[in-house]
């Protein structure tokens, strides 16, 4: 069955950015369709509790999420939940979007498109990172917030930036045991970020409480260390950790820590594939997490009728995403000849302040070049296709010096995850091996489907023809 929908504004992503963009455009009197694959609005940071939770104590994130969900429910926004966007095409001035709604193909036509697709995490591949029991650090926050379940009985929380401490604190709040925290950042890195953090005394106080709690409860924090190897065959039994030099290259004696679970993540990368597919030019900005779509503060791009906002436009954090969503709502309304009441220069000022805080966190979270030397030749880079670092190195030496070339040659990034979990590591290795900067090695060309679609046959073996998507209409 193929359904057809028509709207003024289509918004991709119901997080802080997309949610607020949709609310703004609806207040301007426009028809708005808000598309998200999750059951409930809230995005990554304000994720709703799952169906199995009847009641639980509130947190600042859960309160913000409840508020956003109530506003959307009370608005005229048409929230298409549990709906994946897999294709973006232009038909004259209009956008034609291919959706999968609970597995059923639906086509949505819109006069303007706001992409608020958020971020995905970068997990530094290390030997053994495919072992069951290893969770992505940001992914673990989904388990903690949605299911209110801890990763195991004794968890190592490893990685960069503030997310390590948030995740550790959540594990403790839910009654779990944090075996150790391992972070490449040093106390001095955090001290340097302090001035930028002073604009958010609330977050600073929260962070201070996490640190004091960890200290009082005797959880060891290995500052300036990286998790360098996962121990265990079919399940995690522990990990090796290495002290790092200032470039984050392993330097010094290795130590072993026992654990049955571990969370591992090294910062966030903007999810730009939807913006790319919509034809938006991209540029490299390490301060914003890597490759970002070309856009201004209001999310306006060089492509007519295309706006991008939130972490998908550059990692500036949740608060900035919410403000930029409102600004993009105003931008898209103006583009369609309407006005959002009550959005003005005050919003822009607040957005810039929040973005300054977010950028400081992005700087702390961004991996430094030495970290990639944790990979050895046998380390799997592309989890889906089982491609090792050694195989990639050989392919690069044989001339596959672009992300598109390694994709077609080795199938790196062709598996069911669509490259979400290998692409950053692959382009970094190409840059290192060919003596170029990361900004000189662009990500591969975005291709549909943007999202994993129901797999027809065996895992890891989907053919394009198997996808339950409508054939293109004859012109």
């Amino acid at each position, binding site marked *: 069955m193929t359904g057809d929908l028509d709207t003024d504004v289509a918004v991709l992503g119901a997080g802080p950015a997309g949610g607020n963009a949709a609310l703004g455009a609806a207040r301007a009197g426009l028809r708005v369709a808000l598309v998200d694959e999750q059951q409930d609005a809230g995005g990554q940071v304000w994720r709703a509790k799952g169906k*199995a939770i009847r*009641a639980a104590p509130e947190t600042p994130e859960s309160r913000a999420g409840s508020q956003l969900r109530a506003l959307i429910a009370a608005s005229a926004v048409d929230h298409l939940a549990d709906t994946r966007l897999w294709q973006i095409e232009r038909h004259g001035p209009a956008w034609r979007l291919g959706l999968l709604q609970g597995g059923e193909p639906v086509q949505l036509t819109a006069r303007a498109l706001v992409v608020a697709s958020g971020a995905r995490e970068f997990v530094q591949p290390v030997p053994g990172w495919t072992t*069951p029991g290893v969770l992505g650090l940001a992914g*673990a926050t*989904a388990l903690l917030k949605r299911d209110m379940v801890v990763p195991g009985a004794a968890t190592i929380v490893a990685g960069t930036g503030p997310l390590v401490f948030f995740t550790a604190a959540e594990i403790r709040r839910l*009654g779990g045991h944090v075996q150790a925290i391992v972070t490449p950042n040093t106390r001095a890195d955090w001290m340097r970020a302090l001035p930028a953090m002073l604009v958010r005394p609330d977050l600073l106080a929260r962070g201070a409480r996490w640190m004091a709690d960890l200290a009082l409860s005797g959880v060891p924090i290995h500052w300036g260390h990286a998790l360098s190897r996962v121990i265990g065959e079919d399940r995690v039994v522990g990990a090796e950790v290495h002290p790092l030099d200032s470039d984050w290259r392993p330097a010094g004696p290795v130590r072993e820590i026992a654990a049955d679970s571990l969370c591992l993540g090294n910062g966030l990368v903007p999810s730009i594939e939807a913006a790319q597919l919509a034809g938006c030019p991209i540029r490299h900005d390490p301060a914003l997490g890597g490759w970002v779509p070309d856009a201004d503060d209001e999310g306006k791009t060089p492509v007519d009728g295309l706006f991008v906002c939130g972490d998908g436009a550059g990692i500036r954090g949740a608060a900035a995403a919410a403000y930029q969503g409102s600004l993009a709502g105003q931008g898209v309304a103006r583009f369609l000849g309407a006005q959002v009441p009550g959005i003005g220069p005050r919003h822009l000022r607040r957005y810039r302040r929040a973005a300054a805080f977010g950028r400081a966190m992005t700087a702390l979270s961004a991996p430094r070049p030495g970290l990639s030397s944790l990979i050895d030749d046998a380390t799997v880079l592309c989890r889906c296709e*089982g491609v090792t670092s050694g195989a990639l190195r050989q392919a690069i030496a044989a001339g596959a010096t672009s992300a598109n070339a390694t994709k077609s040659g080795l199938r790196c990034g062709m598996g069911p995850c669509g490259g979400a*979990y290998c692409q950053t590591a692959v382009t970094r290795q190409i840059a290192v091996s060919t003596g170029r900067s990361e900004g000189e090695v662009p990500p591969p060309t975005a291709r549909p489907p943007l999202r994993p679609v129901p797999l027809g046959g065996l*895992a890891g073996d989907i053919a394009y023809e198997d996808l339950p998507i409508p054939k293109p209409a004859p012109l």
Partner: protein
Amino acid sequence: MIRLIPDQSRRIRRTAEVTFWFDDAQIPAHEGEPVATALLRAGQLRLRDAPTVAEGASAARGLFCCMGACQECAVEVDGAVVEACRLEAVEGLRVRSLGRGA
């Protein structure tokens, strides 16, 4: 021990328990809980074996992104491959692992 972050686990109310099958094992779950989460609580971390692995590497795979992006948690239900982290547990559900040659 002094805690500045109180343990709030006792204050969480969950739905009633149901039971589903993972291959030949009976797994308890709260109704509506993602199957992958219930399996994690039951200590079943190895959800499938990957079809392509590097020489000498273990094929065992489990929950990784927890949100429907990485596809590492793929399992089989009624002949279809689905993400265990987005599959809700209901009484009597039959879930099969992939690639373990059972």
